[in-house]
C-alpha cells in the first residue's frame, strides 16, 4: 500500500445527549480507494462521515484527513473535500448550471462546470430550475456540486437512495470513473449491491461500532455458503431451480437470478439448466453474500442486545 492513509479515524465517539451515536469507531482509508460505510438505519454512518467532513465535532477520538484535523483546519479541508449530504436541497428556483458555476466559484482550482454537467448527463438541464428536475437529476446535480471543487476526497452519503435502477447503475459508473481519476471516495449506503459493486473496502457499522472491516468479498465470506448470480435466456420457474442439488435460496432482482447455496453451485446450476434448455449469461459466482453477512452480523448484535435486556 501507498504511504500514509488519506483518512484516519481513531476511537471516534459522538453522543447526542444521552444517545451514543458513534461508540469507539476506528478505521483508515487509503488514497484512491472507494471506502464503503454500511449499516442499518441509525447505526451511526452519517454521524461518522459528518465528523470526517468537519460538520460535527467529535466528543472524543481523533480524525485526520490528509494529515489535517477536520475541525482545526476546517478552512483548508473544505478546499479539497467534496461533500454530498444526505438531505440537502437547493433553493427551488436556482438553475442547474447556476448552482454548479456558483459552487465552482467557491474553490481555487475547480473543474470546468460545463464539462462536469456534460459528464453527468445533465448539461441539457443547464437552464432548468432545481425544483423542476426529477429525483435522479437532482441527485446528479448534488454529485456535481460535490465534485466541482476538484476534491481529493469525496464523501457521498446515500448516493442512490430513491433512484431507479438505470439511474443507479449510471451513477455507479460515474463513481468508478472518479476513482479511476484518483479521487478517494467515502460512500455511505445501506444498499448491499451498491457496496459490493463499488467498494474496495467496507466498514460495517452497527449500534455505533465497527462490526466488520474488510473487502466486500471477505465480509461476505463470513456468512458462509456461496452465491451465483446469472441471467437466464428464458424465464426459469421456482421448482426447476429448487430441484438443483445444493440450492437453498432463490432471489430475483431486475434481470438477475441469484441463487444461494452450498457446493459447486455455478457448475451444477449451468449443467442443470442446460439440460432443460436454458442458457445462462452474465454469471457471477461468489463465496458468501454481503447481504447474508450483513444480516448475520447485525442480527448477532440484536440477539446480544436482547440478552442484555434479559439479564
Amino acid at each position: 500500500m501507498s504511504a500514509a492513509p488519506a483518512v484516519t479515524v481513531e476511537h471516534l465517539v459522538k453522543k447526542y445527549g444521552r444517545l451514543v451515536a458513534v461508540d469507539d469507531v476506528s478505521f483508515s482509508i487509503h488514497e484512491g480507494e472507494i471506502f464503503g460505510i454500511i449499516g442499518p438505519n441509525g447505526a451511526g454512518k452519517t454521524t461518522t462521515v459528518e465528523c470526517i467532513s468537519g460538520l460535527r465535532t467529535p466528543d472524543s477520538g481523533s480524525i485526520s484527513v490528509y494529515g489535517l484535523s477536520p475541525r482545526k483546519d476546517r478552512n483548508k479541508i473544505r478546499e479539497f473535500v467534496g461533500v454530498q449530504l444526505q438531505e440537502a436541497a437547493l433553493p427551488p428556483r436556482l438553475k442547474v448550471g447556476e448552482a454548479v458555476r456558483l459552487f465552482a466559484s467557491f474553490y481555487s482550482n475547480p473543474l470546468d462546470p460545463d464539462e462536469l454537467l456534460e459528464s453527468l448527463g445533465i448539461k441539457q438541464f443547464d437552464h432548468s430550475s432545481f425544483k423542476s428536475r426529477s429525483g435522479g437529476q437532482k441527485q446528479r446535480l448534488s454529485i456535481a456540486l460535490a465534485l466541482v471543487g476538484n476534491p481529493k476526497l469525496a464523501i457521498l452519503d446515500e448516493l442512490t437512495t430513491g433512484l431507479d435502477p438505470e439511474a443507479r447503475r449510471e451513477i455507479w459508473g460515474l463513481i468508478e470513473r472518479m476513482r479511476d481519476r484518483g479521487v478517494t471516495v467515502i460512500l455511505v449506503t445501506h444498499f448491499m449491491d451498491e457496496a459490493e459493486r463499488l467498494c474496495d473496502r467496507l466498514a460495517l457499522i452497527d449500534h455505533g461500532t465497527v462490526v466488520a472491516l474488510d473487502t466486500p468479498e471477505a465480509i461476505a465470506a463470513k456468512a458462509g455458503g456461496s452465491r451465483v448470480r446469472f441471467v437466464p435466456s428464458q424465464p426459469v420457474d421456482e421448482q426447476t431451480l429448487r430441484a438443483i442439488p445444493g440450492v437453498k435460496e432463490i432471489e430475483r432482482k431486475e434481470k438477475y437470478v441469484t441463487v444461494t447455496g452450498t457446493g459447486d453451485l455455478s457448475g451444477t446450476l449451468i449443467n442443470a439448466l442446460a439440460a432443460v434448455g436454458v442458457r445462462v449469461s452474465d454469471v457471477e459466482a461468489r463465496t458468501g453474500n454481503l447481504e447474508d453477512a450483513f444480516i448475520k452480523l447485525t442480527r448477532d448484535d440484536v440477539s446480544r442486545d436482547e440478552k442484555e435486556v434479559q439479564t
Partner: protein
Amino acid sequence: MTDSQLGKSTSHRSAFPFELLKVQSKLALREPYALLGGLALPVALLALFGFIGKANPGNVGDSGLTVIDLWTPTLLVISLLIISVSLPNTLVRDREIGWLRRVSTTPLHPSRLLAAQLIIDLVLAAAAVVIIIGGGALVFGASLHMQILPFGLSLVLTIAEMFALGMVLVALVPTQAVAQPVTGVITFALMFGSGLWVNPAQVGDPLRTIMYYSPSGAAAKAVVDSAFNGGPSYAGLLTMAVYTVIFGFIAIRYFRWE
C-alpha cells in the same frame, strides 16, 4: 466577470463572492417577496394617496401639509419594514432545506450568503427611498422640507433597526410554515405602529406613547420630524439605536446555520 475565471486550471477565487451576489440577485428577482412587498405595494399606496391628494388639494387640518406630504414618510417606513420582514422568506427556507449547511461544506462561509442577501435588500431599500421621495415630489408634488443630515440619519437608523428585526425573525423562526403567519402578524403590528391606520398624533395616551416608542413608530416619527419639524428628537433616535442593538444581539445570539 467571474465566468471567465472558471476555466480549467488557471482560475483563482475572487476575494469577494461576486458570483454568489449575482446568483442571489437572480433568485431575488425570481422570488420577488421583497421586491413586490417592499417596492410594488408602497408605489401602489403612493399612487393612491397621491390621487387622493390631487382630488383634495390644500391643507389637511391646520397642518399646512397636503395628503401626500403627510403620507410620504409613513410609506417610506412601511416599504423598509416590508423589505426587512421578507428576509425570513428566503433565509429560513435556505436553512430549512439544508442549503446553508450544504454551502458550509465548501470554502465559502455561509455568512457570505447572508451578507449577499442583506446587500440585495439594502439596494432594494435604497431604491424604495429614491422611488418614494422622488415619486412623491415629482409626480404628486409632495413638499418635504427636509434637512439632509437628520433625514438621512433617521432613514439609516430605520433601515438598521428594521433589518436587525428581520434577522431576529430569521434567527428565531424555525420553519417556512411558521414564518408565514409570524411575519404576517409582525408586519401588521409594525404597520399599525408606523401609523398606517391610525395617526399617533390623533390618539390619546397611552396608545400614542406606545406607538411613538414602538420600532416602526419611532422610525416613522423620526422621518416625519426630520421632514417637516426641523429634525428628529434625540429620544426618537436613541429609541431606534437601542432597538437596533437589542435586535442585533438577539439575532446573533440565536442564529443557527442548520
